[in-house]
């Protein structure tokens, strides 16, 4: 008996769905797109939240960061002094193990037989590395793998690259044509969801043997990453409070009698612990290993997912309630024939849940199809495992049942409360209560869409602004070649000259760093300022011709010149520094003492350069110094004449291979380096734009369905009006007018919210567009929302308005 009833309901459901094919399609499709978009976002969020949690005991692993102050300038950096890790382990029993890492700052050339590749992000690591990070070994003993000097631990991918299927253990990799490292172990590839990614690790003990300036036991120089694992049940805050002065104390004792000097310069170093799982989303310090994401992205994407889902749900509710007028008769008849209210409620909710489950099936198929594209967009692989994880599957099913339930419940309770008699007698199409609810929902939908549209516009404009902002130098057509070995660096002048001879090269010059890459700061004692309190000023060393190559503008004084022998002690300062020092026009010839105030060596100012962005537009422009340097020049910049880029690259490449056959030709372009700085914004900005478009599309789909219902329900009125002389366009206008009102209201709601939240987002950028000056985006969004709504509605209005009024009047 029950079974029969159930069958009956299911039959009715499908009959209903088929009878209203158009609306069913819109309903299911809208929901399916909404669900698939939110599932994709969900996968993305789950992935973001999973970072660094796969390590065994990850809740006990911390990175040490240092907050501090140096001569008045505050900093917050992910680096520590090099002795930090072993000292912590020695001093505090609650530190179970500690490891220090040193990233090899530039790409290095690795070679095995004839196979040569540049590798980026290589680490030197203490042998305790694997006590903390339980990366999975394939071959080799991780306990001892990093013990011996010149040992290397490779990832599977890298091992394959150099050794193919041969056993890599014991094989020798030649690095930068100078050092030889022996492979001691191979790891499974590093999972994507960790901030700690590397192609291979080199043993810490190699550093000393390499006799390299990289090793630095000074407690005052922050250049090393320290990770610790605490013993169980250790309170990290307690350890933090015990280590507040740890660095400073060690600094004093290391300096011996010279110690009072630090108190004068107000050095402050306060180490603190960052739970490793929080780094990816909550840490944005100086010297992060890689550009981290931000929890705000997780929030905004959750919001977008919720928005999209909400819009899709609203569609669903709107279309279902809109149809309620037609269903009302069915309800009346069912009730007359003894249907119970509860049965009817079950029927309506059941219908809606069946629909939403159907939508889920379609959504999963859509997700499957779009996942690779999506992964590419976010720059990460979303793994299939995550999609078919039983917990995830359960949550999708739950989600769509809830969506179906919520969407179906209002019409269910509303419809089933109809009095059968009144339903059968009266026409309920314009029940004001229910159409009011519908209007409110449409307004919400469009407010969200307009908000997202404005967001899209503002994000797009800001990213464009960043891209096209005058940086104060010309980043176009500049090729950067890294001079990786001492051997190469010795030949700098020769290389510069050879390149300058090429027809397509307009200039070439080497420097210690390039814009966009981050600079080092050095202590300076400017003339007339305190002799104890140094100024920490960012600087770069550059060869003759650097200023011309970069297209930096000189606004006072002159450029470095070979005609003045004293220029070897000359410096150029930037406008910001000039302003800070307050030297005005007298700046030329002023002295600056680097490092030690008592030192005999003094720089003198020969010119002032116009401010330029040597770091990303996230930061404001800081004081800056360019000094003339002939050694330690790591980057060679080559400026091309405008013209055939491919041809230019070819010329350089040939020349390089002729001069340096031991180092494969490898280059970057300066504008790419700058683009890289905004990669995450750009990627997420794009993602935001795409999902906004989806949201807007779903909203339009809903509007389309609703408009067709409205038009259908007003068929008779339209017939009457036409009979008495209404023309097609005036009917179309009549039908569009209501929607126009709602869209207007939606704009009024969305504007202030967009203004507020996007204003917040823009604050991430030191250099940003002013949101008030973006009024065109607001106006354009309004126009688009009107255009889309009117177009959607008119499609129907015109069809209905153009039909023969007789038909409308005849059949009631």
């Amino acid at each position, binding site marked *: 008996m029950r079974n029969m009833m159930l069958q009956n309901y299911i039959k009715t459901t499908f009959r209903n769905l088929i009878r209203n094919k158009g609306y069913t399609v819109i309903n299911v499709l809208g929901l399916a797109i909404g669900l698939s978009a939110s599932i994709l976002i969900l996968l993305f969020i789950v992935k973001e939240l999973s970072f660094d949690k796969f390590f065994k005991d990850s809740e006990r692993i911390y990175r040490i960061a240092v907050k501090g102050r140096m001569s008045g300038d505050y900093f917050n950096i992910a680096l520590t002094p090099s002795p930090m890790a072993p000292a912590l382990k020695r001093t505090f029993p609650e530190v179970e193990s500690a490891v220090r890492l040193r990233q090899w700052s530039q790409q290095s050339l690795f070679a095995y037989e004839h196979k040569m590749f540049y590798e980026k992000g290589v680490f030197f690591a203490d042998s305790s590395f694997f006590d903390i990070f339980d990366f999975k070994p394939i071959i080799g003993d991780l306990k001892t793998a990093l013990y011996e000097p010149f040992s290397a631990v490779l990832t599977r991918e890298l091992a394959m690259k150099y050794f193919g299927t041969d056993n890599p253990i014991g094989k020798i990799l030649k690095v930068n044509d100078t050092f030889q490292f022996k492979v001691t172990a191979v790891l499974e590839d590093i999972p994507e969801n960790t901030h700690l990614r590397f192609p291979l690790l080199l043993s810490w003990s190699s550093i000393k043997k390499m006799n390299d300036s990289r090793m630095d036991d000074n407690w005052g120089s922050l250049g090393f990453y320290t990770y610790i694992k605490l013993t169980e049940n250790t309170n990290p805050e307690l350890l933090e409070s015990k280590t507040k002065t740890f660095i400073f104390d060690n600094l004093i004792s290391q300096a011996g009698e010279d110690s009072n000097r630090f108190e004068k310069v107000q050095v402050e170093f306060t180490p603190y612990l960052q739970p490793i799982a929080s780094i990816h989303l909550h840490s944005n310090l100086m010297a992060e290993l890689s550009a981290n994401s931000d929890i705000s992205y997780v929030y905004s994407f959750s919001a977008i997912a919720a928005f999209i889902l909400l819009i899709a749900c609203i569609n669903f509710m709107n279309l279902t309630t809109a149809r309620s007028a037609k269903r009302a008769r069915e309800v009346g008849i069912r009730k007359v024939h003894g249907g119970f209210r509860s049965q009817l409620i079950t029927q309506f909710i059941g219908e809606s849940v069946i629909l939403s489950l159907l939508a889920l099936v379609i959504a999963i198929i859509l997700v499957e199809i779009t996942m690779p594209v999506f992964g590419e967009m976010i720059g990460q692989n979303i793994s299939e495992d995550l999609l078919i994880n039983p917990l995830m599957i359960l949550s999708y099913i739950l989600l769509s049942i809830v969506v179906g339930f919520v969407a179906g419940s209002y019409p269910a309770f509303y419809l089933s409360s109809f009095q059968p008699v009144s339903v059968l007698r009266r026409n309920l199409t314009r029940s004001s209560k229910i159409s009011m609810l519908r209007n409110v929902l449409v307004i919400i939908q469009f407010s969200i869409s307009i908000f997202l549209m404005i967001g899209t516009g503002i994000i797009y404009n800001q990213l464009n602004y960043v891209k096209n902002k005058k940086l104060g130098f010309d980043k176009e057509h500049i090729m950067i070649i890294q001079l990786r070995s001492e051997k190469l660096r010795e030949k700098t002048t020769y290389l510069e000259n050879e390149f300058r001879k090429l027809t397509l090269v307009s200039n070439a010059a080497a420097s210690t760093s390039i814009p966009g890459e981050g600079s080092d700061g050095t202590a300076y004692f400017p003339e007339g300022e305190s002799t104890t309190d140094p100024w920490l000023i960012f600087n770069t060393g550059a060869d003759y011709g650097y200023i011309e190559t970069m297209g930096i503008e000189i606004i006072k004084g002159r450029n470095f010149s070979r005609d003045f022998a004293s220029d070897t002690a000359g410096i150029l300062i930037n406008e910001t520094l000039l302003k800070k020092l307050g030297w005005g026009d007298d700046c030329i010839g002023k002295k600056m003492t680097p490092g030690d105030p008592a030192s005999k060596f003094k720089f003198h100012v020969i010119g002032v350069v116009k401010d330029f962005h040597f770091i990303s537009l996230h930061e404001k422009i800081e004081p800056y110094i360019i000094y003339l340097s002939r050694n330690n020049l790591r980057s060679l910049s080559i400026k091309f004449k405008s013209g055939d880029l491919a041809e230019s690259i070819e010329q350089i490449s040939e020349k390089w291979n002729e001069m340096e056959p031991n180092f494969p030709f490898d280059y970057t372009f300066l504008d790419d380096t700058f683009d890289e700085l905004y990669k995450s914004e750009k990627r997420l900005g794009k993602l935001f734009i795409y999902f906004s478009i989806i949201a807007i599309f779903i909203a339009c789909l809903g509007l389309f369905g609703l408009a067709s219902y409205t038009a259908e329900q007003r068929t008779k*009125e339209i017939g*009457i009006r036409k009979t*008495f002389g209404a*023309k097609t366009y005036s009917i179309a206008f009549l039908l569009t007018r209501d929607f126009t009102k709602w869209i207007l209201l939606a704009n009024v709601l969305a504007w202030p919210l967009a203004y507020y939240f996007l204003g917040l987002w823009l604050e991430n950028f030191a250099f940003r567009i002013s949101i008030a000056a973006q009024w065109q985006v607001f106006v354009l969004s309004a126009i688009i929302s009107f255009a889309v709504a009117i177009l959607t509605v008119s499609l129907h209005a015109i069809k209905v308005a153009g039909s023969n*009024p007789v038909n409308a009047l005849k059949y009631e």
Partner: protein
Amino acid sequence: MSIIKLNNIHKSYIMGSNKLHVLKGIDLELEKGEMVSIMGSSGSGKSTLLNIIGLLDNHDQGEYWLNGIEMKGLSETKAAHLRNQYIGFVFQSFNLISFKNAMENVAMPLYYQKVSRRKRNLKAMEYLEKMGLKEWAEHLPNELSGGQKQRIAIARALIGEPKVILADEPTGALDSQTSLEVMDILKEINDLGITILIVTHENDIAHRTNRIIKLKDGIIESNVKNGKSHAYSENSMAF
């Protein structure tokens, strides 16, 4: 000059693969100021004929002259304009707009003549008063009786000052007392010189008109004037 002249009017409806020939050559002439009724069994094509005369529908074949102008190949807009100018409609089911009050319903045709709202409403009140419904102006249709609704519909048909009123079973939904009242009103309107064409299947309603036309199987079976019946023939084309 006759206000309405039909010449061999044909009309069929296509329903799927079938063709339903509803009007099979209608010849008909109405003089200005006449009050004529059309009778015939259900499905004989009365409404179809009325809709063609009212420009709500097109004829397939033949000639239709309204006020001396041939109605041929009219655009939507043109038809709407002519309806608004020449014709008033009254329906069996009233066809009032349910969420507009009596006055707004009456005023509606003037909206499409681009009359200002103030003037529209004034004139609507005037016509409601003529129908004795002044105090019902603010009421919605579902608060009114059938007779009142039909009087509102008549006021609406009149407000545009049409030359012809087409009424499709105007008394079909009313009791006999109310029906007679409605007929009296239509008679008064006719006395003002407005041509009236009524579709009905009630004999006593038909007998209150000057002429009775009977439709059968898509042709005019008889055309009875002033109570005197004479068989309809091709020859009667002559008058």
